[in-house]
């Protein structure tokens, strides 16, 4: 059995933990540079203001006191995310973080008697310890767990266990809402009269293959209850820009840790560029090897000086944090990186030049750049996308709340 845990309106929920005046009010968190709404409270959704609405269109309703806005505080969200993951690690046999606010969990065998009770307990613990309400869905496959999660989120207890025969649920679910189908295929599926998740599940393999290749067939298999999604498959899913791997043998050196994280950063950054996206920051993590599975997660949140898709800028930003993950004498099971704050750049930029460069060449390129910089001084060689001359621009976050879990000088005050 697999569980999918995700934070409800995650960014808004993080803000509310430390700002109780936002509770019960229509609140939205804004994208990088205070562009548009990327996380909305239920009260905000109830007003019918869609995701992605530009902030400038709503400023009047903010001035009148009707709506509240926050800039994206990734330092805070990253820390709250790490807290949730570490609780899940205590409660589950294994955890795969999928994005900053989503993780798959593999429940212990003791949970099998009553998954709903187990889910409620985990949810209550996260709510009390971290203050974030979550939805949890259980099913035999990740694709079905995603669907169960969506149903769970709408229930008062936040938890849903997919019934043994999910036919009724799949019949009511439009096919484009199935994880992995996305926006690319609905036209082709419509041509084959596949409109619901159930119709995709029951279509002949040959038809599915001709529409969406082996990827779509895997999705159909998952709907049939056959697990097909390996952790590595997230790499091809544009909704999650992340990369992680388990080491073949537990890693024990700082070099192995640093090299693996650098490689995943390069891979994930290449994927960002493929999708034409910039990231505001990332969570990097390393899991300690434990013989029975599980193992402590060590994590760090890094916010880039400005949203970027340039590997070398990211590597520079994470270098010190990578070192902080290493503990001498510890064996590591896996490492990974999850980007957050993804957005389309507002202005044209030039990094697409590198889009077709194979990963190996790319890492050689960046290695050469770093070597030159090390020899001739910092940033003598850099990609044109970084801009020529001194960097004076930073992400605009005029409505930024305090960072009470990562900065000593921004602690919450109590009277």
């Amino acid at each position, binding site marked *: 059995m697999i569980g999918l845990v995700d934070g409800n309106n995650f960014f808004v929920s993080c803000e509310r933990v430390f700002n109780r005046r936002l509770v019960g009010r229509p609140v939205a968190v804004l994208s990088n540079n205070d562009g548009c709404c990327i996380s909305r409270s239920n009260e905000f959704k109830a007003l019918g203001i869609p995701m992605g609405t530009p902030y400038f269109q709503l400023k009047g309703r903010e001035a009148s006191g009707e709506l509240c806005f926050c800039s994206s505080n990734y330092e805070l969200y990253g820390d709250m995310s790490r807290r949730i993951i570490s609780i899940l690690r205590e409660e589950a046999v294994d955890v795969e973080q999928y994005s900053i606010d989503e993780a798959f969990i593999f429940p212990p065998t003791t949970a099998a008697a009553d998954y709903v009770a187990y889910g409620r307990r985990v949810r209550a613990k996260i709510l009390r310890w971290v203050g974030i309400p979550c939805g949890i869905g259980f099913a035999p496959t990740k694709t079905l767990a995603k669907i169960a999660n969506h149903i769970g989120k709408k229930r008062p207890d936040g938890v849903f266990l997919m019934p043994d025969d999910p036919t009724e649920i799949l019949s009511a679910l439009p096919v484009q809402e199935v994880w992995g189908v996305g926006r690319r295929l609905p036209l082709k599926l419509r041509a084959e009269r596949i409109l619901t998740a159930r119709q995709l599940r029951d279509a002949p393999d040959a038809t599915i293959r001709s529409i969406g290749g082996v990827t779509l067939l895997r999705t159909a298999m998952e709907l049939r209850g056959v697990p097909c999604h390996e952790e590595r498959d997230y790499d091809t899913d544009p909704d999650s820009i992340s990369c992680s791997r388990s080491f073949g043998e537990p890693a024990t050196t700082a070099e192995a840790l640093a090299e693996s994280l650098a490689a995943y950063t390069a891979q994930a950054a290449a994927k960002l560029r493929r999708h034409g996206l910039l990231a505001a920051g990332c969570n990097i993590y390393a899991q300690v090897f434990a013989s029975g599975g599980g193992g402590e997660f*060590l994590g760090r949140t890094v916010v880039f000086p400005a949203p970027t898709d340039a590997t070398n800028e990211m590597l520079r930003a994470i270098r010190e944090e990578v070192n902080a993950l290493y503990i001498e004498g510890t064996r590591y099971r896996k490492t990974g990186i999850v980007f957050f704050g993804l957005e389309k750049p507002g202005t044209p930029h030039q990094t697409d030049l590198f889009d077709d460069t194979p990963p190996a060449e790319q890492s050689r390129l960046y290695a050469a750049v770093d070597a030159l910089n090390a020899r001739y001084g910092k940033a003598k060689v850099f990609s044109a996308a970084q801009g020529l001359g001194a960097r004076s621009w930073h992400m605009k976050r005029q409505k930024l709340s305090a960072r009470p879990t990562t900065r000593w000088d921004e602690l919450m005050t109590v*009277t």
Partner: protein
Amino acid sequence: MSPKARVSGSVVAGFPSPAEQYQEPPLDLNELLVKRPAATYFVRVEGDSMVGAGIRDGDLLVVDRSLRPADGDVIIASVDGDFTVKTYRRDKSGLRLEPANPNYPVIRLRAGQELDYFGKVTSCIHRFAGNR
């Protein structure tokens, strides 16, 4: 959540160091003060409403959200949107938050009003002037 440095014995050729078997990790305040990192938050005190309980203006409090409040505990709660540190009292006369300074009023919860509890204060760190 922060990784702690762990000292392990190094391997050297020749005679083993007589100190080897006595090596231990150094004392770590995190280990003492933070039992559950995922549930622990640090907050700063503003004002003297709890001075009688040894909590002074500018002190740093360690707060554990995982602990449920019991009568007599020092807790953090939100009252009308602002966070406050007070002693939690629950008895026949109902639920109230008591300051430790006669200049401040006791906060009584109205009937049906729920306490917006944040967490229990487990330690107070007071740094002397000149060491901040």
